[in-house]
């Protein structure tokens, strides 16, 4: 593909899945030959260089609170595809293969197709953003993500006027994701945003954390981060991004509609039916640390409250 400088990758340029597998076979044969002669790096095709993740911090959109440690961020996860306990994702995702990775972009947009992750990333400038993360279970962390604004990807695919929402889908592969062998949720996991939410500068597609590629348990290789919403909106291991006309049927709001809404904005005034959302426990504090007050829109009200003007947030929770 000679269009490295072109900003848009046309569907016709995208390697078909059959060809893709083929090229791996070709590569393997090449490597077998190469082993006899000059050594070739094995991961050449699907690798993203480590330096790409060492991105400069966007200070304007970062919080100044102390970030959680890498151990906390990668050892305490809700990622039901790998099990429902907080320690399951780290334990059960060791054999997960985040690369090579393809993402299908389709629906109400002009530039559709199946894109290799490295091609999607090629035109993007990665940046570090330190965001608060508030889980719907009333705990929170501060995480230095590495990623790029979703709006930058959105632009390149030219959604049409019919696109009212963006739907995201996680990989569905019970072989690699043992949690999917149990029907705890209706797999695959689906999340969604309204177009204006998706285009908000805070909405991030993350590929790394702490200057390194995302660990598998954090949603490698590509995940969504929407810091003013509860953590479950941040869909992980994304394989599909669809521009759609109707509000997508998102996983948690479908599983328990009285407990989890489509919007899921962090809101201390609207309790979960079974627990208060007024306060949160910051992970990493001492055993005797007090809970802290939860902020409307998780402290991002200045940037996002306008999106919901005139809406009853008690009903649209």
């Amino acid at each position, binding site marked *: 593909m000679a269009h490295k400088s072109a900003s848009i990758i046309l569907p016709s340029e995208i390697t078909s899945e059959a060809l893709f597998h083929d090229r791996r076979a070709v590569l393997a044969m090449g490597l077998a030959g190469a082993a006899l002669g000059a050594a070739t790096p094995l991961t050449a095709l699907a690798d993203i260089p480590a330096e790409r993740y060492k991105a400069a911090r966007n200070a304007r959109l970062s919080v100044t609170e102390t970030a959680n440690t890498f151990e906390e961020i990668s050892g305490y996860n809700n990622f039901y595809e790998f099990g429902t306990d907080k320690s399951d994702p780290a334990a059960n995702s060791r054999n997960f293969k985040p690369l090579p990775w393809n993402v299908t972009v389709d629906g109400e947009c002009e530039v559709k197709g199946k894109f290799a992750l490295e091609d999607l990333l090629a035109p993007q400038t990665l940046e570090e953003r330190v965001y608060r993360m508030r889980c719907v279970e009333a*705990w929170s962390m501060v995480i230095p993500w590495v990623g790029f604004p979703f709006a930058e990807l959105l632009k390149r695919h030219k959604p049409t006027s019919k696109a009212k929402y963006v739907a995201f889908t996680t990989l569905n592969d019970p072989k690699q994701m043992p949690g999917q062998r149990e029907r705890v949720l209706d797999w695959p996991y689906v999340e969604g945003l309204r177009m204006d939410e998706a285009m908000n500068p805070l909405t991030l597609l993350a590929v790394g954390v702490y200057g390194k590629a995302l660990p598998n348990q954090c949603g490698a290789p590509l995940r969504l981060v929407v810091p003013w919403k509860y953590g479950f909106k941040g869909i992980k291991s994304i394989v599909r991004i669809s521009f759609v006309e109707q509000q997508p049927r998102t996983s948690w709001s479908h599983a328990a509609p009285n407990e989890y809404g489509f919007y899921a904005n962090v809101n201390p005034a609207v309790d979960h039916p079974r627990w208060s959302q007024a306060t949160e426990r910051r992970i990493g504090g001492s055993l005797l640390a007090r809970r802290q007050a939860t902020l409307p829109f998780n402290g991002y009200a200045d940037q996002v409250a306008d999106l919901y003007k005139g809406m009853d947030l008690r009903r649209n929770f």
Partner: protein
Amino acid sequence: MFITPALWLAAGALGVAGVSLGVDPVRSLVHENGTMALRMLVATLAITPLRQLTGHSDLLRLRRMLGLFAFFYALLHLSSWVVFDQGMDLQMILSEVVKRPYLLVGLSAVLLMLPLALTSTTAAQRWLKRRWTQLHRLTYVIAVLAVWHFWWQVKKDLREPIAYAVIVAVLLGWRVWKRPRAAKARSAPATTQGTA
């Protein structure tokens, strides 16, 4: 043997002996103690069927200790929630208990355990006689409340609470199934044994 988990949790809370309670120690303390309380309750309920099946009446001596351990872990469960999770904010605790039925269910279970713990001595047993047996049947109610409390606070994955519910149902069902025979036996002259 039954005290080991409590010692382990205490070591983790104090950060001694290299024991760690993981990324979220508050959650670990509350959950582990709650799980232990439930396990001890189930073990307590298992004694009578086991005795009837095996004929080992010395198992009864174990029952008091198991019951008291259930109470011990239930108290640790409740107090770690009050102290570490809620930061002893009484106003918040009260409003939470009133608003969240699952908390009320759990709290009722602990409160119902109190009279049982207080009357667990042999002296109380002699003093209350038949009433003691009746009083200590509250254990059945407590076990149901405990499973209910567990079930209700789970976000989505119900496999574990279902497992406990099945075990408790079997243990209580055993008693129902055995009951007509006991009643029949009581009408016969020779038997006097009460079971709880």
